[in-house]
């Protein structure tokens, strides 16, 4: 591999306090090292348990670029296995989801495996007699990932067997997942339909950074949100006509800088953080009839108000997801290549809540994050222009300096002005940490 392989100093040199080197976005060798180290050392989102509700149900996805299967084993537990037959390498499952019954059977030579990955049977097994098969890696079956954690229905995995434990990796940031799940009167979410799948010809980190970039909506999205407001104001309508749901969703994107400054950003250790500490673009949605009463019945009034009063905007879980608690949405930024990212946008039903909430959630997903979305079109335009622009030799560094203060300590939880780029700096601090953690060499 290149100049970066096994050279932790070269990797560390890509991140400075207020700027990062373009190779972080455009260099294929850096990307390969991300897949080898960063995506193996961190806890990466795999799927939601409701995508495999019954024994034998499975769901195929990737952790970084590693193909995996998330499956519900016969004991009811979720397992995450490498999607590769230990015999010849054939992917065991290629459909996106299904039920495999009590075991997986490789379609090539019929090696079969229990749903925890253990080898069950090999046809004509006598052919391996006295060959030492029991000493091979193959006999162990489909390899499980290093560690799996099901947190309130959200399944995360760490590829490496050793590394940070789940609780210390996420810490207090789990409060955003808690808030999303608590919004169900029954404390439970269910995935609602398949995700949007939107291919971006840019580096995955541009998308993650954009989640807490509060200085772009009123610029990049003026064409959609700004035009929507103009059209609504020009429309002939009776006095006091209520804004349609779509307007409630799209109009706040045009909020002024001051709105975003005051909403606040919170950063947590290990690259996690969220916008919308005090309020957010989701704060002023109309109440859905019957919902508050259901929440009060389930939690009591004080607790219900506390849950619904928390209107966090975007929570980034490093390395590659964002969730919106008030919307019940999760976006997964799947790295494909240095210049290619697949964005999958999932929505969830709040079990026990009115359907109209899910209607707003589904509307948000398609209006903002679909490949056919007016908002998404302008975001993608920016990312792709940046991916191309970074090849310019005019400057090799990307600026992340807004509201920087000397001696920032990312191991501390901080709440700051909502337009700070501290969360981006927090991500790059974590990026360097988890990239070099397993690289060897001098720290």
């Amino acid at each position, binding site marked *: 591999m290149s100049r970066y392989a096994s050279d932790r100093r070269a990797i560390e040199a890509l991140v400075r306090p207020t700027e990062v080197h373009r190779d972080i976005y455009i260099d294929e060798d850096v990307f390969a090292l991300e897949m080898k180290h960063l995506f193996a050392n961190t806890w990466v989102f795999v799927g939601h348990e409701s995508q495999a509700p019954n024994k034998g149900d499975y769901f195929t996805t990737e952790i970084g670029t590693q193909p995996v299967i998330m499956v519900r084993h016969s004991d009811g537990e979720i397992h995450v296995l490498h999607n590769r037959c230990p015999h010849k390498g054939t992917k065991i499952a290629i459909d996106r989801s299904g039920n495999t019954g009590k075991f997986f059977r490789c379609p090539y030579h019929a090696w079969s495996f229990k749903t925890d990955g253990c080898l069950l049977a090999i046809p004509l097994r006598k052919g391996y007699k006295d060959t030492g098969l029991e000493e091979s890696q193959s006999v162990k079956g489909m390899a499980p990932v290093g560690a799996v954690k099901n947190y309130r229905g959200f399944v995360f995995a760490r590829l490496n067997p050793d590394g940070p434990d789940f609780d210390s990796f996420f810490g207090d940031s789990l409060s955003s997942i808690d808030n999303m799940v608590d919004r169900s009167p029954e404390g439970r979410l269910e995935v609602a339909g398949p995700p949007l799948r939107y291919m971006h010809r840019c580096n995955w980190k541009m998308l993650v950074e954009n989640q807490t970039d509060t200085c772009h909506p009123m610029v990049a999205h003026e064409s959609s949100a700004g035009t929507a407001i103009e*059209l609504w104001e020009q429309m002939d309508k009776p006095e006091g006509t209520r804004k349609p749901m779509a307007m409630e969703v799209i109009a706040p994107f045009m909020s002024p800088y001051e709105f975003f400054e005051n909403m606040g950003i919170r950063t947590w250790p290990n690259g996690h953080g969220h916008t919308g500490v005090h309020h957010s673009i989701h704060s002023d949605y109309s109440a859905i009839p019957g919902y508050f009463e259901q929440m009060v019945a389930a939690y009591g009034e004080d607790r219900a108000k506390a849950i619904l009063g928390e209107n966090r905007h975007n929570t980034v879980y490093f390395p590659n997801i964002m969730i919106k608690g008030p919307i019940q949405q999760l976006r997964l930024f799947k790295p494909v290549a240095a210049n290619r990212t697949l964005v999958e946008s999932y929505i969830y039903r709040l079990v026990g809540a009115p359907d109209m909430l899910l209607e707003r959630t589904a509307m948000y997903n398609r209006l903002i994050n679909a490949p056919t979305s007016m908002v998404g079109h302008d975001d993608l335009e920016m990312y792709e222009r940046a991916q191309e622009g970074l090849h310019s030799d005019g400057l090799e560094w990307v600026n992340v300096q807004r509201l920087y203060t000397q001696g920032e300590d990312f191991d501390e939880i901080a709440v700051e002005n909502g337009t700070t780029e501290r969360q981006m700096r927090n991500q790059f601090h974590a990026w360097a940490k988890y990239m070099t953690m397993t690289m060897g060499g001098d720290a």
Partner: protein
Amino acid sequence: MAFPTRDDLIDFVYEEARMLDDGRFDEWLDLWTPDSFYWMPLDYNQKDDKHVTSLLHEDAFMRKLRIERFKGERTFSQKPKTRCHHVLQRPFVDQQDDDKGEYVTHTSFQYVETRLDDQILLAATARHELKLVDGKLKITHKRVDLLNSDAAFGNIQMFL
């Protein structure tokens, strides 16, 4: 027209596609009834247009917004503008109910969208629900199913 003939219905579907290809968007907006929807499902055989994600589910306001946005000075993903091109198989007339003034057509088509050096080709089926309003055919519902609706797409910027 009194009642639309089979040819009138077929011509209507062709003419609608031509308006989009020619960029005659304001004329295109006038083809719709006020409470109509344009629906592009995300999933094969999708039944629900509200409680799961769709690619598009646009009422009159959202269609108008999309068209107005195309014209904007700061519509960055439309600098330069996208162009599109429809190739239609002859529409089937699935329902022709003069008593109700309601008509349904089913049209297979291929759609090409281009901008800068990129060009995409999509295969799709359109189901038009039409209604006779003051002697003119109007669209009450148009459903567009992409053959590969579950695939990962880049930007699809125009109405199909």
